[in-house]
């Protein structure tokens, strides 16, 4: 039958030496089953022997579609049979020509039956390794199998230059099996072992380094659907997918998935998927994605589980926080979460934390032993409560004791269900109301009311690294509101301290969590007992009362930028007014020097304390310069202390303008040293 298909031109039987030792048949072209053999010569050799050899030489063999990219050139088949129903070459050698494959030569065999034909190429050289290709064509059906071992990807990259992913090192073992009907593939299986794969995209956003990967992908097509399942495991090396850097050394990463692809509707139905980063976290779930006009998540149900949040935060969280306000935040502890997404939007979230600690390298926030359950849903009628508890919560240097919150979160609202009392510096902060409301296209609005009770100033000053103070803060916190990135306090905060009262009003802050926090306040100071106040400073003792104000105080990065302040003896003060020698000297230094000149040093040294009528110092800080003023003007300057009783002392400041930094340096010198001695 085959012979009937052949266009045969017998050019001649070539008689050779040793009469009829061999005969040959030249054929211009053979075409059958999609095969095309051109310039073929069939020779019968060793006629003299009992077993003759039939040899085939062909200039070009083109394989049937869709394998027709391959052509064999200068083919020599030393073991060739040709019967009525079959043409077969069991052992041959040829050059190979292909757009993709470049190999100087290959061993091959083929068998062309009436309906079915097969071919096999072995010893095929590709990218520094040997490759085997096997193909079967049976009517309309076909199958192709490629086996390659230790393919050098760097060579492969030179052979097939492409812009997408430049490969520089590594080896691949590949096993590919594809089958199909006519020109449509219907089923494929790929098994790939990547060893030390190093490469990256041109923009460097995706890269691998020494990647060790074993992957298996199976897919089959039926009635408009591709059904597939894949397993991939990374045992070593690293992957970079901006912004994530995953180092698999010692911690394998595994991704298994089963999915359906709806070709017509461009819909991917992930029936199950599991991502497991050993000793870090696992994420599993299912989802439906639509690939029309971008990727649409129609539905997703995800479960996250981590027994150790330390690597989760350093590997998966830190890269996203880099150069944001939250840079430097790390977590530890355990967590699990369930997330449901419907039509691109989060529908429900349940998260359970246990033994979670939050650390901030910038020292803004610290949570110790946090635990709780957060239940959230987008449904406005959702009413499942959440709880959150901690052993310690620290904001900047301010530590808060253990507390438990019960709250409700739904849609864009958060509201507190209980009225917790949080231990704070020997006293308590009581929260009466706390609510958070997200505003579309705006910063969220936060409202808080509460009270402070007996918060120790001694501990507060210690925590803030101030000169130790005594006394306590109590008072109602009327209404703290955060909206438009601005924190404000409506009403007054009263601090009971040193037998007097400090009243803080018009408190406002913005950019609290930026590199430049800004802070506004007005302070009124009423009748503080100087003896208690100075007793805590290394300033030198003073008795009497002190009143005054700091108005329009403006701090940037906790440094004063401007204010108008006055501190001095109140007019109606009739308490005892004494000042120590050390305090006189220190006050003189604040004033900018030489103030003690009013009295001779020898005279001064006789007395421990002096009486005074009034003392007072004011400063108007503006553009880094403090404009100083005293209790009264004198011809040469301003009086900081006016004498009263005996021995009498007057301290006069001469320099009314002092650079703020210089003034602070002077104060620091005073408070860090008590070695200023009067001789």
């Amino acid at each position, binding site marked *: 039958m085959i012979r009937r298909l052949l266009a045969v031109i017998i050019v001649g039987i070539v008689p050779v030496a040793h009469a009829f030792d061999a005969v040959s048949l030249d054929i211009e072209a053979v075409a059958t089953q999609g095969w095309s053999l051109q310039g073929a010569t069939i020779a019968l050799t060793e006629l003299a022997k009992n077993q003759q050899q039939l040899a085939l030489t062909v200039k070009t063999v083109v394989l049937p579609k869709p394998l027709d990219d391959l052509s064999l050139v200068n083919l020599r088949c030393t073991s060739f049979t040709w019967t009525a129903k079959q043409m077969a070459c069991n052992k041959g050698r040829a050059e190979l020509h292909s757009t993709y494959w470049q190999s100087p030569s290959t061993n091959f065999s083929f068998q062309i039956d009436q309906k079915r034909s097969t071919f096999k190429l072995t010893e095929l050289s590709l990218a520094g390794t040997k490759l085997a290709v096997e193909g079967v064509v049976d009517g309309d059906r076909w199958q192709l199998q490629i086996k390659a071992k230790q393919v050098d990807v760097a060579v492969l990259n030179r052979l097939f230059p492409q812009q997408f992913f430049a490969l520089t090192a590594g080896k691949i073992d590949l096993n590919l099996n594809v089958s199909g009907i006519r020109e449509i593939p219907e089923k494929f299986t790929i098994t790939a072992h990547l060893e030390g794969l190093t490469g990256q995209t041109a923009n460097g*956003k995706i890269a691998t380094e020494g990647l060790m990967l074993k992957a298996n992908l199976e897919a089959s097509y039926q009635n408009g659907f591709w059904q597939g399942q894949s397993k991939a495991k990374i045992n070593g090396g690293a992957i970079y997918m901006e912004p994530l850097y995953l180092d698999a050394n010692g911690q394998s990463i595994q991704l298994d998935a089963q999915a359906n692809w709806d070709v017509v509707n461009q819909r991917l139905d992930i029936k199950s998927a599991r991502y497991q980063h050993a000793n870090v976290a696992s994420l599993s779930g299912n989802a439906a994605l639509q690939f029309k006009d971008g990727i649409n998540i129609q539905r997703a149900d995800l479960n996250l589980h981590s027994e150790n949040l330390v690597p989760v935060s350093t590997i998966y969280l830190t890269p996203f926080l*880099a*150069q944001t306000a939250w840079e430097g935040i790390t977590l530890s502890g355990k967590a699990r979460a369930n997330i449901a997404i419907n039509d691109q939007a989060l529908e429900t979230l349940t998260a359970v934390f246990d033994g979670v600690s939050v650390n901030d390298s910038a020292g803004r926030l610290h949570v110790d032993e946090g635990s709780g359950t957060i239940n959230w849903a987008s449904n406005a009628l959702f009413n499942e409560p959440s709880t959150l508890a901690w052993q310690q919560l620290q904001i900047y240097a301010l530590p808060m004791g253990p507390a438990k919150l019960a709250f409700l979160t739904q849609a864009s609202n958060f509201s507190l269900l209980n009225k917790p009392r949080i231990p704070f510096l020997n006293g308590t902060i009581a929260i009466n109301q706390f609510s958070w409301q997200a505003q579309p296209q705006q910063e969220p609005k936060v409202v808080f009311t509460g009270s402070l009770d007996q918060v120790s100033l001694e501990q507060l000053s210690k925590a803030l690294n101030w000169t130790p103070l005594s006394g306590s803060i109590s008072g109602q916190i009327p209404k703290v509101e955060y909206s438009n990135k601005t924190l404000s306090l409506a009403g007054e905060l009263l601090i009971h301290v040193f037998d007097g009262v400090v009243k803080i009003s018009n408190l406002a802050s913005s950019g609290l969590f930026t590199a430049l926090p800004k802070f506004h306040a007005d302070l009124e100071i009423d009748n503080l007992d100087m003896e208690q106040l100075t007793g805590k400073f290394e300033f030198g003792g003073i008795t009497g009362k002190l009143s005054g104000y700091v108005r329009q105080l403006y701090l940037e990065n906790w440094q004063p930028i401007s204010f108008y302040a006055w501190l001095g003896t109140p007019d109606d003060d009739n308490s005892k007014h004494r000042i120590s020698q050390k305090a006189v000297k220190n006050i003189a230094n604040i004033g900018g020097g030489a103030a003690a000149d009013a009295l001779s040093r020898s005279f001064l040294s006789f007395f421990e304390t002096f009486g005074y009528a009034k003392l007072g110092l004011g400063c108007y800080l503006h553009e880094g310069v403090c404009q100083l003023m005293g209790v009264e003007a004198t011809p040469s300057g301003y009086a900081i202390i006016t004498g009263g009783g005996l021995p009498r002392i007057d301290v006069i400041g001469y320099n009314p303008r002092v650079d703020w930094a210089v003034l602070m340096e002077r104060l620091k*010198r005073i408070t860090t*040293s008590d070695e*200023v001695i009067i001789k």
Partner: protein
Amino acid sequence: MKKLSILGALWLTACVTINIYFPAAAAEKAADEIIKEIQKVEPQKSEPKAGLSDWQIATYQALDKAINLVMSSAHADGADLNIDSAEIRQARASMEARFSTLLPHYQAGYIGIQADGSLAVRDPASVPLQIRNQVSKLVSAENQDRQALYQAIANANGHPEWAAQIKSTFAARWVSNAQSGWWIQSSGSWKQK
């Protein structure tokens, strides 16, 4: 009445045009000052000595007075370009804080200064994978701050439209304040300073 309307017409036509030119020299000076401050390598702070003797105190006091004098005269002279506002301080504070992290990447040649004064990752593919994200985030954050700084200076001087000119002034100053060994892009190609 007629007189009044003529006067009025005269008044209307007697327009005075005041041109305010971009103070290029002052901008250069300001740029240098800001860039030097940002790229200042923190010197080892020496603690002021406690327990100063009287003559030392007197000397300090004399110095204070002298400094105050100089300061107030400097304030009186006033630069042509105001570089002090909350927004400017914010951008500067953020860039000063970032510089120590940027410095090793400047030195390693991962990042360089482009012709417009913005930073760029020279060849993203040559940056080690572990720090690639950090470098790219640093560069984009720094560029945001630089842009914010130019606009803040323009705003502080009441001329928001000066931002582009301030940017081009800074562009040259970033290059000239670059340390030797840093990479600079000119007419498309990178060169080491």
